[in-house]
């Protein structure tokens, strides 16, 4: 049966081990992509929140100054 497989099919067939190899690679891909997407979505949401909060306090000095020692509200992370 393996003899009359096209080269593409025999590539996917992986010598009969396809149920192991493809799920393995697949889960790796899925988890990496999921971690990336989750991070990017959370980053976007967080940035929107930050913009909203900064818009509410216009007289506060913009945090993107380059002075290394900030004002009294420079929170120690």
């Amino acid at each position: 049966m393996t003899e009359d497989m096209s080269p593409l099919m025999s590539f996917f067939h992986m010598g009969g081990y396809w149920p192991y190899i493809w799920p393995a690679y697949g889960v790796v891909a899925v988890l990496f992509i999921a971690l990336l997407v989750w991070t990017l979505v959370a980053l976007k949401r967080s940035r929107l929140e930050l913009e909203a909060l900064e818009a509410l306090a216009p007289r506060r000095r913009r945090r993107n100054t380059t002075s290394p020692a900030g004002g009294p509200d420079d929170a120690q992370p």
Partner: protein
Amino acid sequence: MASPNPSGGFWHRLANPARFQRLSAWLMPWLVLITLGCFGAGLYYGLYASPIDYQQKDTVRIMYVHVPAAWLAMMSYSTLAISGFVALVWRHPLADVAGAATAPIGAVFTFLALFTGAIWGQPTWGTWWVWDARLTSVLILFFMFLGYIAIRNAFDDQARAGRAASLLAIVGVVILPIIKFSVDWWNTLHQPASVSKLSGSSMDPAMLRPLLIMAVAYMALFGVLLLLRMRLELTRRRVEALQMARAGAATP
């Protein structure tokens, strides 16, 4: 920001969040490029242009996703420990951020090492889980990541959470070699004579190539994820600081 280290220089300038953002913005495209390029080449060589193993046949290809995952799991924990050390000793504010950012990444790499290791074990040894020395050590490492994440979440006071987690990471990295040593010992006592085949019986250079390319791909991906999560963590902290300031100003 007082620091016991007078010659801060580069690292001190980096502590400024704006500078960090600029540096990470500059670095990011390169990392993304390396990630995509190496994954492309690694998948090509790993899945297509590399030989099959004499005994394991095609299943040896799982090694190209499993072994780099295990390496990155160790590298992630080392990052946790180093950032913990820097956070406690030099109080560098980015160190704590780096630790918080790394933990979930490390947990994912560790889980992938376990999962792909299990899949590799089934056709090789006929069983989904085997108490082989490396898999057992990686399983323990997985719980050490979970412990780090749990202790970070156990305190409302973020500063306290950071200090406790940093200390835990340092203690963990000291004990990790001892754990590895004792698990290796335990494994040689209880395993039958067959040598672990999971490392690949012969490291043909044609097999080494995809392995190393994938390892670089994983490392670049780690860099991308780390920078992104550090930005996320910094943004979250600023949000929280602003919210607390507003709450403080609101009370009469």
